[in-house]
């Protein structure tokens, strides 16, 4: 809206160039998959499946010429090395960078779609403009996602040829359609973005929204397909015990952990996308000089933070569901995940998620300064802080403690009598539910900051809300303590579900009641967008950084619990890097990745601004 107009031809050229670029990207992505699929699928079509298989296996171990249709058995020689390149760290970094960008570019269209729909419903143009700005931020990241995807495929082909060949063999159909789907995704995205101002009007807006739907459908399907390949490596299905593909693509895709990962990634992507856009808005806010720009980016940052929090609230439950399913799939994998060396990773995770919750809350509290009316609620904040920090401390209390010998003697064992019980799941579930409830409470208070209800039953409504919260908290504690410590483990797991339901019901009901109480509420002081301290913007940065880092860390464990397997129980990792790295090493790789990602994101954001800049070089062009 405030960007200078670009000439029609310049824009057309840019569009053509980008379309060409996107087609190239899609081709680049499709090529390796295609060549893999073709090389293996053609003989299979001719009814020579076994020869194709032996061709692959023959490469693996020339000594055995027997046609083995199973997964290749690799030796050290099957992992090509390039001097000076650590192949595992390279593939790790590239995969993680690809995932970060993919999560971002998949998530943004989801909430852009929602914001656009809200704009259509309310006919408030600001929503439409903000949605456009969101998608503008993500569009440059799209090509980077494709580049990184291509780089990932090439690195896999170069460094892990046997694994890539095997996965291609199992997933030939889905990989082929994955590549094709990119055309739809790209076409929809570019139509959606470039057609934004063209498709305006009663009918055209519906067309535009439909394109957004197609874009999201294609993007989500893409992610689900890629998830299938990843979860296949964790919980293989559709193959026999030797790894021979049984011919049913759906069985291989619909493996045990597919849906848990799909759900978890879908929600996490939205939260992540929100946090990255929030960081963008925060940076623009800090650098903005005009008051109206500050107001605009303040509002954008607030919305992004709202999206991030809204998706963050159900995320622990999705994560818990995923972990429970991993346990159910294989006790060994489950204990590797929760009890072995990775147990400490969850302490790091707790610190990070605590950081997320605290910074998101802090941003909300700082945002209350936008209105004078909020001062009424300031005195409650310190209690919310106490509860949040208290719950957080419970959450990251480890079950096994790091003890000096003296402390060991003082405690009389490796477990702490009073803090030990806080180390197991029921306590942590209770703590996280409380944290979520109070984060929602922060939001409720924020909503009320500048308004006074006018409905007659406001006091009663408020009492009902308080009662709801009280009952909910009591119920969560009861479930956590009774089922967690006084019944058996089946209920321990089961109790987490009523806890979650309690939390969700209390939040939803309070929001509904609140919406009714504050209908036609009187504004006692204006909400001044832009009046927010710089500290709050740093809270948004913290949110984005912690989120990025956390995703990297959890990517490490998701992959790491496979231990020395490419495909658990079917294809062994015989490379020199089959060892599981220490948490410190993993953290360093994740940190390096985060820095790289942040640098690329800054570049992408800078690019998205570049189109608006114009220089008139004096005396350069012929007059």
């Amino acid at each position, binding site marked *: 809206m405030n960007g200078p107009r670009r000439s029609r031809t310049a824009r057309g050229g840019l569009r053509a160039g980008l379309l060409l670029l996107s087609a190239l990207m899609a081709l680049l992505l499709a090529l390796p998959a295609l060549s893999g699929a073709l090389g293996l699928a053609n003989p299979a079509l001719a009814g020579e499946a076994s020869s194709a298989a032996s061709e692959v296996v023959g490469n693996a171990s020339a000594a055995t010429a027997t046609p083995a249709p199973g997964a290749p058995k690799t030796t050290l020689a099957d992992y090509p090395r390039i001097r000076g390149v650590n192949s595992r760290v390279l593939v790790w970094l590239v995969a993680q960078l690809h995932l970060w960008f993919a999560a971002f570019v998949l998530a943004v269209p989801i909430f852009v779609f929602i914001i656009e729909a809200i704009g259509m419903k309310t006919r408030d143009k600001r929503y439409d403009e903000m949605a456009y700005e969101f998608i503008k931020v993500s569009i440059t990241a799209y090509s980077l996602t494709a580049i990184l995807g291509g780089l990932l495929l090439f690195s896999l082909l170069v460094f892990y040829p046997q694994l890539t060949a095997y996965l291609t063999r199992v997933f030939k159909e889905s990989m082929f359609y994955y590549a094709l789907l990119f055309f739809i995704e790209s076409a929809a995205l570019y139509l959606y973005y470039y057609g934004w101002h063209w498709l305006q009007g009663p009918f055209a807006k519906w067309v535009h929204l439909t394109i957004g739907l197609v874009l999201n459908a294609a993007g989500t399907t893409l992610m689900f397909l890629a998830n299938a390949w990843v979860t296949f490596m964790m919980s293989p299905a559709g193959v026999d015990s030797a790894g021979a593909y049984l011919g049913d693509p759906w069985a291989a895709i619909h493996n045990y952990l597919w849906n848990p990962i799909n759900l978890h990634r879908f929600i996490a992507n939205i939260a992540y996308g929100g946090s990255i856009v929030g960081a963008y808005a925060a940076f623009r806010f800090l650098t903005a000089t005009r008051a109206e720009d500050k107001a605009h980016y303040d509002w954008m940052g607030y919305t992004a933070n709202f999206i991030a929090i809204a998706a963050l609230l159900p995320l622990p439950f999705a994560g818990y569901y995923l972990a429970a399913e991993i346990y159910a799939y294989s006790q060994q994998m489950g204990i590797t995940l929760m009890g*072995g060396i990775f147990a400490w990773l969850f302490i790091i995770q707790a610190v990070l998620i605590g950081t997320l919750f605290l910074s998101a809350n802090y941003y909300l509290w700082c945002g209350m300064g936008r209105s004078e009316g909020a001062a009424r609620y300031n005195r409650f*904040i310190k209690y919310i*802080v106490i509860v949040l*920090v208290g719950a957080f401390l419970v959450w990251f209390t*480890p079950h096994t403690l790091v003890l*000096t010998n003296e402390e060991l003697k003082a405690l009389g064992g490796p477990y702490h009598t009073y803090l030990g019980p806080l180390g197991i799941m029921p306590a942590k579930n209770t703590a996280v539910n409380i944290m979520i409830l109070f984060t929602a409470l922060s939001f409720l208070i924020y909503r009320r900051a500048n308004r006074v209800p006018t409905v007659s039953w406001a006091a009663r409504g408020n009492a009902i809300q308080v009662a709801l919260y009280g009952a909910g908290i009591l119920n969560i504690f009861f479930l956590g303590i009774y089922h967690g410590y006084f*019944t058996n483990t089946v209920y321990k797991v089961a109790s987490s579900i009523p806890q979650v339901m309690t939390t969700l019901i209390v939040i939803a009901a309070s929001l509904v009641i609140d919406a009714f109480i504050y209908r036609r509420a009187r504004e006692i002081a204006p909400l001044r967008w832009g009046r927010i301290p710089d*500290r709050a913007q740093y809270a948004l940065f913290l949110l984005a950084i912690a989120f990025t880092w956390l995703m990297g860390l959890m990517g490490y464990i998701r992959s790491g619990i496979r231990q020395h397997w490419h495909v658990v129980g079917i294809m062994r990792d015989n490379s020199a890097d089959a060892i599981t790295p220490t948490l410190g090493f993993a953290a360093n790789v994740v940190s390096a990745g985060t820095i790289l990602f942040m640098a690329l994101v800054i570049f992408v954001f800078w690019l998205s601004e570049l189109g608006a800049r114009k220089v008139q070089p004096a005396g350069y062009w012929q007059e």
Partner: protein
Amino acid sequence: MMGRLLSRIPALLRAALVVVGIYLAATAIFSGLLGQPIPASLMTMYMFFVIVGVFMAFTFTEEGARAMAAPIRALVENPALRPVRNIVFLLVPLAAGAFTYTKMLPSLEAPVELRTIHPAPPSTFKAYGKRYDLLTLENPFRKYEKEDPERFRALVAEGGKIYIRNCQFCHGDKLNGRGPFAPALNPVPLNFQDVGTIAQLQESYLFWRIATGGPGLPEEAAPWISSMPVWQNFLKEDEIWKVILFLYDYTGHRPRAWEK
């Protein structure tokens, strides 16, 4: 009265007092009252986030932030405070140096030893000359709990006898890890009453740990200083399963299960 007194103290000092107060209270409660001190490693992290929380509570409003920053700002900017500034600027690096020095100083304290108490089990293991698949292994007697409660009671009772003859010396007659031999052992015998031990595990895991003992621990659980004997050398397969029944029955825990 109290509140007014508090509000007269500068915000920064108030924040510091809150932090110190929480620290002292936690130490007093856990070390003094409960006799179970909070380990230093955990206390450090607790206090870090307490400080973060206090900072947030004091700075979320503009006035609060200004009040917090005021003494620091004054220290740096106020010409009248120059002597204090010089002292502080001298003390801070000195304190950092002293902290680093004490941290790096070699001590007689044995290095912290970390054992993974619940190492990830192998997918299969060998005992009694057979190979067991931990994923599918089940207690052969568990089914009698429903099918034949009388027989189940008898099996549990047998398990109890075996436990008293073999296990209670370390794990205690109350299954709390405080048997007569326990004070001499490090790592201490596991306390089965704790909600964090057998209640978190499947019966097959217990069978693995009992049958192969300390020497059967995977490398991840090194150092292998567990004094748990290799019970497959002393007990029959059935006897181990009966003991497992007894462990769960006596403690009232249920083996971890995901089905149903």
